[in-house]
Protein backbone atom coordinates (compact mmCIF):
# COMPACT_ATOMS: atom_id res chain seq x y z
CA UNK A 1 0.00 0.00 0.00
CA UNK A 2 1.47 3.33 -0.93
CA UNK A 3 1.19 6.41 1.21
CA UNK A 4 -0.26 9.59 -0.24
CA UNK A 5 2.79 11.82 0.02
CA UNK A 6 1.27 14.94 -1.55
CA UNK A 7 1.54 18.14 0.38
CA UNK A 8 0.52 21.76 -0.07
CA UNK A 9 2.28 25.09 0.31
CA UNK A 10 -0.70 27.39 0.19
CA UNK A 11 -2.56 26.18 -2.90
CA UNK A 12 0.56 24.85 -4.58
CA UNK A 13 0.67 21.09 -4.54
CA UNK A 14 3.95 19.20 -4.25
CA UNK A 15 4.05 15.53 -5.22
CA UNK A 16 6.08 14.78 -2.13
CA UNK A 17 7.32 16.79 0.83
CA UNK A 18 11.09 16.55 0.24
CA UNK A 19 12.80 19.61 -1.23
CA UNK A 20 16.40 20.67 -1.48
CA UNK A 21 17.41 23.39 0.98
CA UNK A 22 18.25 26.81 -0.40
CA UNK A 23 21.85 27.15 -1.51
CA UNK A 24 22.52 23.41 -1.34
CA UNK A 25 21.71 22.41 -4.90
CA UNK A 26 23.60 25.04 -6.94
CA UNK A 27 21.81 25.44 -10.29
CA UNK A 28 20.09 22.06 -10.20
CA UNK A 29 22.14 20.65 -13.05
CA UNK A 30 24.79 19.30 -10.74
CA UNK A 31 22.31 17.03 -8.97
CA UNK A 32 20.61 16.12 -12.23
CA UNK A 33 23.70 14.07 -13.03
CA UNK A 34 22.73 11.81 -10.17
CA UNK A 35 18.95 11.56 -10.36
CA UNK A 36 15.86 12.88 -12.09
CA UNK A 37 14.95 16.17 -10.44
CA UNK A 38 11.27 15.51 -11.04
CA UNK A 39 11.46 13.14 -8.12
CA UNK A 40 11.92 16.08 -5.76
CA UNK A 41 8.91 17.65 -4.10
CA UNK A 42 10.53 20.86 -5.29
CA UNK A 43 13.95 22.23 -5.99
CA UNK A 44 14.80 25.30 -3.94
CA UNK A 45 17.39 27.47 -5.65
CA UNK A 46 20.30 29.22 -4.04
CA UNK A 47 19.39 32.68 -2.84
CA UNK A 48 19.38 34.85 -5.93
CA UNK A 49 20.72 38.37 -5.56
CA UNK A 50 20.39 41.37 -7.86
CA UNK A 51 24.01 41.52 -8.90
CA UNK A 52 26.38 38.62 -9.39
CA UNK A 53 28.24 37.83 -6.17
CA UNK A 54 31.67 36.33 -5.80
CA UNK A 55 30.96 35.36 -2.21
CA UNK A 56 33.46 35.10 0.62
CA UNK A 57 37.12 34.19 0.50
CA UNK A 58 38.19 30.65 1.29
CA UNK A 59 38.36 28.75 3.58
CA UNK A 60 34.60 28.72 3.41
CA UNK A 61 33.97 25.52 5.34
CA UNK A 62 34.94 23.83 8.56
CA UNK A 63 33.72 20.58 9.95
CA UNK A 64 32.36 20.58 13.51
CA UNK A 65 30.93 17.74 15.60
CA UNK A 66 27.97 16.43 13.58
CA UNK A 67 27.96 19.75 11.81
CA UNK A 68 29.40 21.91 9.11
CA UNK A 69 30.19 25.59 9.22
CA UNK A 70 29.92 27.43 5.94
CA UNK A 71 30.54 30.97 4.85
CA UNK A 72 29.89 30.93 1.15
CA UNK A 73 28.46 34.42 1.09
CA UNK A 74 25.67 33.88 -1.43
CA UNK A 75 28.01 33.33 -4.35
CA UNK A 76 25.83 33.35 -7.43
CA UNK A 77 25.31 34.68 -10.90
CA UNK A 78 22.86 37.47 -10.08
CA UNK A 79 19.24 37.66 -11.13
CA UNK A 80 19.85 38.42 -14.82
CA UNK A 81 21.97 35.37 -15.42
CA UNK A 82 19.62 33.32 -13.25
CA UNK A 83 16.63 34.29 -15.39
CA UNK A 84 18.57 33.79 -18.56
CA UNK A 85 20.27 30.48 -17.90
CA UNK A 86 19.24 28.74 -14.70
CA UNK A 87 15.51 29.19 -14.34
CA UNK A 88 14.67 28.39 -17.99
CA UNK A 89 16.64 25.15 -17.76
CA UNK A 90 14.49 24.12 -14.80
CA UNK A 91 11.27 25.52 -16.24
CA UNK A 92 11.66 23.77 -19.58
CA UNK A 93 11.94 20.49 -17.76
CA UNK A 94 8.90 21.24 -15.66
CA UNK A 95 10.79 20.94 -12.40
CA UNK A 96 8.88 22.51 -9.51
CA UNK A 97 11.14 25.37 -8.53
CA UNK A 98 11.03 27.50 -5.41
CA UNK A 99 13.19 30.53 -6.02
CA UNK A 100 15.07 31.84 -3.00
CA UNK A 101 15.96 35.52 -2.96
CA UNK A 102 18.36 37.53 -0.83
CA UNK A 103 18.89 41.27 -0.58
CA UNK A 104 20.51 43.99 1.45
CA UNK A 105 17.55 46.36 1.59
CA UNK A 106 13.78 46.10 1.48
CA UNK A 107 13.90 47.75 -1.92
CA UNK A 108 16.32 45.15 -3.24
CA UNK A 109 14.04 42.30 -2.19
CA UNK A 110 11.12 44.06 -3.85
CA UNK A 111 13.13 44.60 -7.01
CA UNK A 112 14.06 40.92 -7.09
CA UNK A 113 10.44 39.95 -6.64
CA UNK A 114 9.47 42.19 -9.50
CA UNK A 115 12.01 40.49 -11.74
CA UNK A 116 10.58 37.11 -10.79
CA UNK A 117 6.95 38.16 -11.07
CA UNK A 118 6.67 37.56 -14.80
CA UNK A 119 9.20 34.76 -15.08
CA UNK A 120 7.67 31.43 -16.03
CA UNK A 121 8.45 28.46 -13.82
CA UNK A 122 8.43 30.07 -10.40
CA UNK A 123 6.47 27.71 -8.15
CA UNK A 124 7.00 29.85 -5.07
CA UNK A 125 9.38 32.48 -3.75
CA UNK A 126 11.34 31.83 -0.60
CA UNK A 127 12.62 34.97 1.06
CA UNK A 128 15.98 34.40 2.74
CA UNK A 129 15.77 36.76 5.68
CA UNK A 130 19.22 35.85 7.00
CA UNK A 131 20.85 38.67 5.05
CA UNK A 132 22.32 41.72 6.73
CA UNK A 133 20.24 44.84 6.39
CA UNK A 134 22.70 47.41 5.10
CA UNK A 135 20.36 50.19 6.17
CA UNK A 136 20.43 48.94 9.78
CA UNK A 137 24.14 48.53 10.52
CA UNK A 138 24.20 45.07 9.00
CA UNK A 139 21.59 43.65 11.36
CA UNK A 140 20.15 40.48 9.90
CA UNK A 141 16.50 40.92 8.85
CA UNK A 142 15.44 37.61 10.39
CA UNK A 143 16.52 38.76 13.84
CA UNK A 144 13.91 41.47 14.04
CA UNK A 145 10.24 40.85 13.37
CA UNK A 146 9.63 44.37 12.06
CA UNK A 147 12.38 44.28 9.46
CA UNK A 148 11.42 40.76 8.40
CA UNK A 149 7.78 41.81 8.01
CA UNK A 150 8.69 44.80 5.90
CA UNK A 151 10.59 42.62 3.48
CA UNK A 152 7.78 40.08 3.28
CA UNK A 153 5.13 42.74 2.74
CA UNK A 154 7.09 44.29 -0.08
CA UNK A 155 7.70 40.96 -1.79
CA UNK A 156 4.10 39.83 -1.29
CA UNK A 157 2.76 43.03 -2.81
CA UNK A 158 4.76 42.42 -5.96
CA UNK A 159 4.33 38.70 -6.53
CA UNK A 160 1.34 37.22 -8.34
CA UNK A 161 -1.33 36.08 -5.89
CA UNK A 162 -0.97 32.45 -6.95
CA UNK A 163 2.75 32.32 -6.21
CA UNK A 164 3.19 31.64 -2.50
CA UNK A 165 5.71 33.75 -0.62
CA UNK A 166 7.66 31.76 1.94
CA UNK A 167 9.55 33.50 4.75
CA UNK A 168 12.76 31.69 5.70
CA UNK A 169 13.53 32.25 9.35
CA UNK A 170 16.68 31.95 11.41
CA UNK A 171 16.92 30.39 14.88
CA UNK A 172 19.17 33.08 16.37
CA UNK A 173 16.32 34.95 17.98
CA UNK A 174 14.74 35.07 21.40
CA UNK A 175 11.25 34.28 20.12
CA UNK A 176 10.95 32.67 16.71
CA UNK A 177 7.17 32.46 16.97
CA UNK A 178 6.99 36.23 17.22
CA UNK A 179 9.09 36.70 14.08
CA UNK A 180 6.98 34.07 12.33
CA UNK A 181 3.78 35.83 13.28
CA UNK A 182 5.11 39.15 12.05
CA UNK A 183 5.90 37.54 8.69
CA UNK A 184 2.51 35.86 8.40
CA UNK A 185 0.75 39.09 9.32
CA UNK A 186 2.77 40.78 6.58
CA UNK A 187 1.47 38.28 4.05
CA UNK A 188 3.76 35.26 4.13
CA UNK A 189 1.85 32.25 2.82
CA UNK A 190 4.27 29.78 4.33
CA UNK A 191 7.38 29.64 6.48
CA UNK A 192 10.65 27.83 6.12
CA UNK A 193 12.91 27.15 9.08
CA UNK A 194 15.62 27.00 10.11
CA UNK A 195 18.37 28.80 8.37
CA UNK A 196 21.85 28.25 9.81
CA UNK A 197 22.50 29.47 13.33
CA UNK A 198 25.71 31.48 13.46
CA UNK A 199 28.71 29.51 14.64
CA UNK A 200 32.45 29.65 14.63
CA UNK A 201 35.47 27.45 14.82
CA UNK A 202 39.06 28.32 15.60
CA UNK A 203 41.98 26.41 14.17
CA UNK A 204 44.12 25.51 17.17
CA UNK A 205 47.21 25.10 14.99
CA UNK A 206 47.14 28.45 13.22
CA UNK A 207 45.40 30.08 16.22
CA UNK A 208 43.05 31.82 13.80
CA UNK A 209 39.39 31.47 12.87
CA UNK A 210 38.94 28.41 10.66
CA UNK A 211 36.79 30.38 8.21
CA UNK A 212 38.09 33.37 6.31
CA UNK A 213 34.81 35.09 7.16
CA UNK A 214 35.42 34.35 10.88
CA UNK A 215 31.86 33.25 11.62
CA UNK A 216 29.70 30.99 9.50
CA UNK A 217 26.40 29.19 9.40
CA UNK A 218 26.10 25.91 11.24
CA UNK A 219 24.28 23.10 9.46
CA UNK A 220 23.96 19.36 9.64
CA UNK A 221 22.69 16.90 12.25
CA UNK A 222 23.96 19.04 15.13
CA UNK A 223 21.14 21.54 14.53
CA UNK A 224 18.27 19.07 14.07
CA UNK A 225 17.05 19.55 17.67
CA UNK A 226 16.96 23.32 17.12
CA UNK A 227 14.97 22.89 13.91
CA UNK A 228 12.48 20.52 15.55
CA UNK A 229 12.00 22.96 18.40
CA UNK A 230 11.51 25.96 16.09
CA UNK A 231 9.00 24.12 13.93
CA UNK A 232 7.18 22.95 17.04
CA UNK A 233 6.97 26.43 18.56
CA UNK A 234 5.83 28.07 15.35
CA UNK A 235 3.30 25.37 14.53
CA UNK A 236 1.94 25.78 18.05
CA UNK A 237 1.54 29.50 17.54
CA UNK A 238 0.35 29.38 13.92
CA UNK A 239 -1.21 25.98 13.33
CA UNK A 240 -2.70 27.03 10.01
CA UNK A 241 0.52 28.13 8.33
CA UNK A 242 2.40 25.65 6.16
CA UNK A 243 5.98 25.13 7.33
CA UNK A 244 8.95 23.78 5.42
CA UNK A 245 11.12 22.17 8.09
CA UNK A 246 14.84 22.42 7.41
CA UNK A 247 17.92 21.69 9.47
CA UNK A 248 20.06 18.63 9.95
CA UNK A 249 17.82 16.17 8.15
CA UNK A 250 19.89 13.13 7.19
CA UNK A 251 17.29 10.35 7.35
CA UNK A 252 13.61 9.70 6.92
CA UNK A 253 13.27 9.57 10.70
CA UNK A 254 14.73 13.07 10.98
CA UNK A 255 12.23 14.31 8.37
CA UNK A 256 9.47 12.53 10.28
CA UNK A 257 10.42 14.40 13.45
CA UNK A 258 9.97 17.73 11.66
CA UNK A 259 6.65 16.60 10.22
CA UNK A 260 5.36 15.43 13.59
CA UNK A 261 6.44 18.83 14.95
CA UNK A 262 4.33 20.59 12.34
CA UNK A 263 6.19 20.81 9.03
CA UNK A 264 4.31 19.81 5.89
CA UNK A 265 7.46 19.78 3.76
CA UNK A 266 11.10 19.13 4.58
CA UNK A 267 14.24 20.69 3.11
CA UNK A 268 17.46 18.77 2.81
CA UNK A 269 20.78 20.62 2.66
CA UNK A 270 23.98 19.32 4.18
CA UNK A 271 22.90 15.72 3.70
CA UNK A 272 23.20 16.27 -0.06
CA UNK A 273 26.88 17.05 0.34
CA UNK A 274 27.36 13.63 1.84
CA UNK A 275 24.92 11.72 -0.28
CA UNK A 276 23.83 13.15 -3.63
CA UNK A 277 20.80 10.85 -3.51
CA UNK A 278 19.82 12.02 -0.02
CA UNK A 279 16.48 13.54 -1.06
CA UNK A 280 15.30 10.35 -2.71
CA UNK A 281 16.53 8.15 0.11
CA UNK A 282 14.90 10.35 2.75
CA UNK A 283 11.63 10.43 0.83
CA UNK A 284 11.63 6.65 0.61
CA UNK A 285 12.55 6.20 4.26
CA UNK A 286 9.86 8.64 5.30
CA UNK A 287 7.24 6.85 3.26
CA UNK A 288 8.31 3.53 4.79
CA UNK A 289 8.06 4.95 8.29
CA UNK A 290 4.62 6.38 7.62
CA UNK A 291 3.42 3.13 6.14
CA UNK A 292 4.84 1.10 9.03
CA UNK A 293 2.93 3.29 11.46
CA UNK A 294 -0.30 2.94 9.56
CA UNK A 295 -0.54 6.33 7.94
CA UNK A 296 -2.33 6.50 4.62
CA UNK A 297 -1.56 10.15 4.06
CA UNK A 298 1.43 12.27 4.96
CA UNK A 299 -1.00 15.05 5.82
CA UNK A 300 -2.31 13.06 8.77
CA UNK A 301 1.10 13.08 10.40
CA UNK A 302 1.69 16.83 10.15
CA UNK A 303 1.89 18.27 13.66
CA UNK A 304 0.67 15.04 15.18
CA UNK A 305 3.09 15.18 18.12
CA UNK A 306 1.08 18.16 19.36
CA UNK A 307 -1.96 15.91 19.70
CA UNK A 308 -0.74 12.58 21.02
CA UNK A 309 -3.27 9.89 20.12
CA UNK A 310 -5.68 9.20 22.90
CA UNK A 311 -4.95 12.26 24.96
CA UNK A 312 -6.29 15.76 25.15
CA UNK A 313 -4.11 18.58 23.87
CA UNK A 314 -1.32 19.09 26.32
CA UNK A 315 -0.45 22.36 27.94
CA UNK A 316 3.18 22.33 28.72
CA UNK A 317 5.85 24.80 29.63
CA UNK A 318 7.87 25.09 26.52
CA UNK A 319 9.89 28.13 27.06
CA UNK A 320 12.67 26.76 29.17
CA UNK A 321 14.53 23.60 29.82
CA UNK A 322 14.99 24.46 33.41
Amino acid sequence: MSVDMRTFLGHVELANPITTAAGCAASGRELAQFFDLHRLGALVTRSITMAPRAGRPTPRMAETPAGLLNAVGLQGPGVDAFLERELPWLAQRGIKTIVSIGGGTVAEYAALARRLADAPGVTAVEVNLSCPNIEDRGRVFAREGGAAAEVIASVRSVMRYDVPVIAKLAPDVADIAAVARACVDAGADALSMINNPLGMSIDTVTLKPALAAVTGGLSGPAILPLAVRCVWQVHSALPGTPIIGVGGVMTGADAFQLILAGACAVGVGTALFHDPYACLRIERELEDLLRARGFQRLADAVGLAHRPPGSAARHLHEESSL
Partner: protein
Amino acid sequence: MQVTGTVLTTRRVDAYHALTVVAPGIAERFRPGHFVSVSVGGANTAMVTRRAFYVHDVKPEYGGTVELVFSAGGPGTAWLAERRARDTIDLVGPLGRPFPLPRDPVHCVLVGSEYGSAVLFPLADALAERGCRVDFVLGAASADRVFGAMRARRMAERATVTLTTEDGSLGVRGTVSDALPAVVAGTRADVVYACGPMRTLRAVTAVAIEADIPVQVAVEESMACGIGICMTCVLPVIGDDGVTRMTRACAEGPVFRGERVRFEDVGTIPFDALGAPGGGARHVS
Protein backbone atom coordinates in the same frame (compact mmCIF):
# COMPACT_ATOMS: atom_id res chain seq x y z
CA MET B 1 27.91 7.51 -8.93
CA GLN B 2 27.80 6.16 -5.41
CA VAL B 3 29.38 2.78 -4.74
CA THR B 4 29.78 0.66 -1.66
CA GLY B 5 33.23 -0.73 -2.29
CA THR B 6 34.94 -3.59 -0.55
CA VAL B 7 38.50 -3.05 0.55
CA LEU B 8 40.72 -5.55 -1.23
CA THR B 9 44.13 -4.71 0.18
CA THR B 10 45.71 -2.15 2.43
CA ARG B 11 49.38 -1.36 2.59
CA ARG B 12 51.82 1.21 3.85
CA VAL B 13 53.98 3.00 1.30
CA ASP B 14 56.55 4.95 3.27
CA ALA B 15 54.64 7.81 4.89
CA TYR B 16 51.42 6.91 3.09
CA HIS B 17 48.57 4.47 3.26
CA ALA B 18 47.30 2.80 0.13
CA LEU B 19 43.86 1.27 -0.11
CA THR B 20 42.63 -0.81 -3.01
CA VAL B 21 38.86 -0.88 -3.22
CA VAL B 22 36.58 -2.91 -5.46
CA ALA B 23 34.43 -0.28 -7.15
CA PRO B 24 33.54 -1.43 -10.65
CA GLY B 25 31.36 1.46 -11.71
CA ILE B 26 33.97 4.01 -10.72
CA ALA B 27 36.88 2.11 -12.21
CA GLU B 28 35.06 1.83 -15.49
CA ARG B 29 34.38 5.54 -15.85
CA PHE B 30 37.74 6.65 -14.53
CA ARG B 31 40.02 9.01 -16.48
CA PRO B 32 43.37 10.27 -15.13
CA GLY B 33 42.84 13.27 -12.86
CA HIS B 34 39.50 12.11 -11.53
CA PHE B 35 39.01 11.95 -7.80
CA VAL B 36 36.60 10.17 -5.50
CA SER B 37 35.03 11.22 -2.23
CA VAL B 38 34.88 8.84 0.67
CA SER B 39 32.44 8.74 3.54
CA VAL B 40 34.43 8.44 6.77
CA GLY B 41 33.68 7.41 10.34
CA GLY B 42 31.02 4.76 9.81
CA ALA B 43 27.53 4.68 11.27
CA ASN B 44 26.70 7.40 13.78
CA THR B 45 29.86 9.31 13.11
CA ALA B 46 30.13 12.98 13.98
CA MET B 47 32.02 13.59 10.71
CA VAL B 48 29.49 14.89 8.20
CA THR B 49 31.68 15.63 5.19
CA ARG B 50 33.31 13.24 2.77
CA ARG B 51 37.05 13.25 2.13
CA ALA B 52 38.40 13.71 -1.39
CA PHE B 53 41.19 11.55 -2.81
CA TYR B 54 42.78 11.25 -6.19
CA VAL B 55 42.62 7.85 -7.79
CA HIS B 56 46.10 6.48 -8.05
CA ASP B 57 45.48 3.31 -9.91
CA VAL B 58 42.71 1.44 -11.60
CA LYS B 59 42.86 -2.30 -12.25
CA PRO B 60 40.42 -4.59 -13.98
CA GLU B 61 40.37 -7.24 -11.21
CA TYR B 62 37.02 -8.09 -9.62
CA GLY B 63 35.26 -5.99 -12.21
CA GLY B 64 37.36 -2.94 -11.41
CA THR B 65 39.37 -1.64 -8.47
CA VAL B 66 40.61 1.80 -7.57
CA GLU B 67 43.60 2.54 -5.40
CA LEU B 68 43.81 5.59 -3.15
CA VAL B 69 47.01 6.86 -1.58
CA PHE B 70 46.76 9.14 1.39
CA SER B 71 48.49 10.44 4.44
CA ALA B 72 46.67 10.05 7.73
CA GLY B 73 46.39 13.49 9.29
CA GLY B 74 43.02 14.43 10.74
CA PRO B 75 40.29 12.16 12.08
CA GLY B 76 38.82 11.20 8.71
CA THR B 77 42.05 10.01 7.15
CA ALA B 78 42.98 8.35 10.45
CA TRP B 79 39.74 6.38 10.27
CA LEU B 80 40.44 5.43 6.68
CA ALA B 81 43.92 4.26 7.64
CA GLU B 82 42.30 1.76 10.02
CA ARG B 83 40.27 0.04 7.32
CA ARG B 84 41.13 -3.57 6.70
CA ALA B 85 40.58 -5.99 3.85
CA ARG B 86 36.90 -6.91 3.50
CA ASP B 87 35.66 -3.73 5.18
CA THR B 88 33.34 -1.73 2.99
CA ILE B 89 33.65 1.97 2.24
CA ASP B 90 31.24 4.30 0.55
CA LEU B 91 32.64 6.13 -2.47
CA VAL B 92 31.22 8.75 -4.80
CA GLY B 93 33.02 9.17 -8.09
CA PRO B 94 34.64 9.51 -10.43
CA LEU B 95 34.47 13.25 -9.83
CA GLY B 96 35.90 16.34 -11.48
CA ARG B 97 37.28 17.02 -14.90
CA PRO B 98 40.25 14.84 -15.79
CA PHE B 99 43.53 15.88 -17.38
CA PRO B 100 43.17 16.77 -21.03
CA LEU B 101 45.40 14.53 -23.15
CA PRO B 102 47.40 15.78 -26.11
CA ARG B 103 46.48 14.37 -29.50
CA ASP B 104 50.08 14.10 -30.61
CA PRO B 105 52.99 12.12 -29.15
CA VAL B 106 54.54 15.08 -27.37
CA HIS B 107 57.08 15.34 -24.56
CA CYS B 108 55.47 15.62 -21.14
CA VAL B 109 56.96 16.40 -17.75
CA LEU B 110 54.88 15.16 -14.84
CA VAL B 111 55.53 16.98 -11.59
CA GLY B 112 54.26 15.64 -8.28
CA SER B 113 54.77 16.81 -4.75
CA GLU B 114 53.97 14.65 -1.71
CA TYR B 115 50.92 12.41 -2.34
CA GLY B 116 50.13 14.60 -5.34
CA SER B 117 52.41 12.26 -7.27
CA ALA B 118 49.84 9.51 -6.95
CA VAL B 119 47.53 10.99 -9.55
CA LEU B 120 50.32 11.14 -12.15
CA PHE B 121 50.71 7.42 -12.78
CA PRO B 122 47.44 6.66 -14.53
CA LEU B 123 48.10 9.88 -16.46
CA ALA B 124 51.57 8.64 -17.42
CA ASP B 125 50.05 5.37 -18.63
CA ALA B 126 47.54 7.22 -20.80
CA LEU B 127 50.22 9.49 -22.20
CA ALA B 128 52.56 6.59 -22.89
CA GLU B 129 49.74 4.84 -24.73
CA ARG B 130 49.57 7.83 -27.03
CA GLY B 131 53.27 7.58 -27.61
CA CYS B 132 54.19 10.53 -25.46
CA ARG B 133 57.54 10.70 -23.76
CA VAL B 134 56.98 11.01 -19.99
CA ASP B 135 59.58 12.44 -17.62
CA PHE B 136 58.98 12.72 -13.88
CA VAL B 137 59.90 15.22 -11.24
CA LEU B 138 58.79 13.94 -7.86
CA GLY B 139 59.49 15.60 -4.58
CA ALA B 140 58.54 16.09 -0.98
CA ALA B 141 59.86 17.44 2.29
CA SER B 142 61.74 14.22 3.07
CA ALA B 143 62.55 10.90 1.45
CA ASP B 144 59.72 8.93 3.07
CA ARG B 145 57.19 11.39 1.65
CA VAL B 146 58.33 11.16 -1.97
CA PHE B 147 55.70 8.97 -3.54
CA GLY B 148 56.13 6.68 -6.53
CA ALA B 149 59.87 6.99 -7.23
CA MET B 150 60.26 3.28 -7.97
CA ARG B 151 57.26 3.07 -10.20
CA ALA B 152 58.32 6.18 -12.07
CA ARG B 153 61.76 4.66 -12.66
CA ARG B 154 60.17 1.49 -13.94
CA MET B 155 57.90 3.38 -16.34
CA ALA B 156 60.39 5.90 -17.57
CA GLU B 157 62.74 3.58 -19.38
CA ARG B 158 63.40 5.97 -22.16
CA ALA B 159 63.02 9.06 -20.00
CA THR B 160 64.22 10.67 -16.76
CA VAL B 161 63.10 10.66 -13.17
CA THR B 162 64.22 13.54 -10.99
CA LEU B 163 63.67 13.34 -7.27
CA THR B 164 63.82 16.24 -4.85
CA THR B 165 63.61 16.57 -1.10
CA GLU B 166 63.72 19.70 0.97
CA ASP B 167 65.97 18.06 3.54
CA GLY B 168 68.20 16.50 0.92
CA SER B 169 67.53 12.98 2.17
CA LEU B 170 66.79 11.81 -1.37
CA GLY B 171 67.74 13.16 -4.80
CA VAL B 172 68.30 16.86 -5.26
CA ARG B 173 67.94 19.14 -2.27
CA GLY B 174 65.12 21.59 -2.92
CA THR B 175 61.63 21.54 -4.35
CA VAL B 176 60.20 20.12 -7.54
CA SER B 177 59.94 23.60 -9.00
CA ASP B 178 63.62 24.21 -8.29
CA ALA B 179 64.48 21.14 -10.34
CA LEU B 180 61.89 21.68 -13.04
CA PRO B 181 63.55 24.28 -15.33
CA ALA B 182 66.50 21.99 -16.03
CA VAL B 183 64.20 19.05 -16.74
CA VAL B 184 62.01 21.11 -19.07
CA ALA B 185 65.05 22.33 -20.92
CA GLY B 186 66.79 18.95 -20.95
CA THR B 187 63.79 16.99 -22.23
CA ARG B 188 62.57 19.73 -24.53
CA ALA B 189 59.18 19.35 -22.88
CA ASP B 190 56.03 20.38 -24.72
CA VAL B 191 53.73 20.35 -21.71
CA VAL B 192 53.85 20.11 -17.92
CA TYR B 193 51.33 18.28 -15.72
CA ALA B 194 51.48 18.90 -12.00
CA CYS B 195 49.78 17.94 -8.78
CA GLY B 196 50.65 19.02 -5.27
CA PRO B 197 50.05 21.77 -2.76
CA MET B 198 48.95 25.16 -4.05
CA ARG B 199 52.34 26.81 -3.54
CA THR B 200 54.01 24.04 -5.55
CA LEU B 201 51.52 24.45 -8.38
CA ARG B 202 52.10 28.17 -8.34
CA ALA B 203 55.86 27.73 -8.66
CA VAL B 204 55.50 25.02 -11.31
CA THR B 205 53.18 27.23 -13.30
CA ALA B 206 55.71 30.05 -13.15
CA VAL B 207 58.36 27.74 -14.57
CA ALA B 208 56.08 26.64 -17.40
CA ILE B 209 55.11 30.20 -18.24
CA GLU B 210 58.77 31.14 -18.26
CA ALA B 211 59.46 28.22 -20.63
CA ASP B 212 56.42 29.22 -22.64
CA ILE B 213 54.77 25.79 -22.57
CA PRO B 214 51.29 24.85 -21.36
CA VAL B 215 50.83 23.50 -17.85
CA GLN B 216 47.92 21.54 -16.44
CA VAL B 217 47.60 21.58 -12.67
CA ALA B 218 45.39 19.45 -10.43
CA VAL B 219 44.52 21.54 -7.39
CA GLU B 220 43.40 20.75 -3.87
CA GLU B 221 40.88 22.93 -2.06
CA SER B 222 38.82 22.11 1.04
CA MET B 223 35.70 20.45 -0.26
CA ALA B 224 32.45 19.82 1.55
CA CYS B 225 30.62 18.06 -1.29
CA GLY B 226 32.90 17.31 -4.24
CA ILE B 227 29.97 17.46 -6.67
CA GLY B 228 29.57 21.18 -7.26
CA ILE B 229 26.68 22.06 -4.97
CA CYS B 230 28.21 23.58 -1.82
CA MET B 231 30.41 26.32 -3.32
CA THR B 232 33.11 25.93 -0.67
CA CYS B 233 35.97 24.82 -2.93
CA VAL B 234 36.35 27.91 -5.08
CA LEU B 235 39.48 29.65 -6.32
CA PRO B 236 39.92 32.58 -8.65
CA VAL B 237 40.29 31.34 -12.22
CA ILE B 238 40.38 33.41 -15.37
CA GLY B 239 37.82 32.28 -17.96
CA ASP B 240 38.07 32.14 -21.71
CA ASP B 241 36.50 35.58 -21.76
CA GLY B 242 39.27 37.00 -19.61
CA VAL B 243 36.94 37.40 -16.63
CA THR B 244 38.02 36.06 -13.25
CA ARG B 245 35.40 33.96 -11.55
CA MET B 246 35.35 32.19 -8.20
CA THR B 247 35.44 28.76 -9.74
CA ARG B 248 34.69 25.42 -8.16
CA ALA B 249 37.70 23.14 -7.87
CA CYS B 250 35.46 20.08 -7.77
CA ALA B 251 33.19 20.74 -10.72
CA GLU B 252 35.18 22.97 -13.08
CA GLY B 253 38.46 21.42 -11.79
CA PRO B 254 40.36 19.89 -10.17
CA VAL B 255 42.45 20.22 -13.32
CA PHE B 256 43.00 23.73 -14.62
CA ARG B 257 45.37 25.34 -17.04
CA GLY B 258 48.00 26.70 -14.68
CA GLU B 259 48.17 30.17 -16.15
CA ARG B 260 44.43 30.59 -15.69
CA VAL B 261 44.63 30.10 -11.91
CA ARG B 262 45.34 33.27 -9.96
CA PHE B 263 47.49 31.50 -7.42
CA GLU B 264 48.60 34.70 -5.71
CA ASP B 265 44.94 35.51 -5.03
CA VAL B 266 43.85 32.12 -3.71
CA GLY B 267 42.14 32.66 -0.36
CA THR B 268 40.90 36.11 -1.40
CA ILE B 269 38.23 37.53 -3.65
CA PRO B 270 40.23 39.53 -6.20
CA PHE B 271 38.74 42.98 -6.59
CA ASP B 272 38.20 42.38 -10.30
CA ALA B 273 36.51 39.00 -9.94
CA LEU B 274 32.97 38.72 -11.21
CA GLY B 275 30.69 39.80 -8.39
CA ALA B 276 33.50 40.95 -6.10
CA PRO B 277 32.45 43.38 -3.40
CA GLY B 278 32.88 46.84 -4.78
CA GLY B 279 33.74 45.39 -8.15
CA GLY B 280 30.88 47.03 -9.93
CA ALA B 281 28.43 44.56 -8.42
CA ARG B 282 26.44 45.67 -5.40
CA HIS B 283 26.90 43.38 -2.45
CA VAL B 284 24.50 42.56 0.31
CA SER B 285 26.95 41.74 3.06
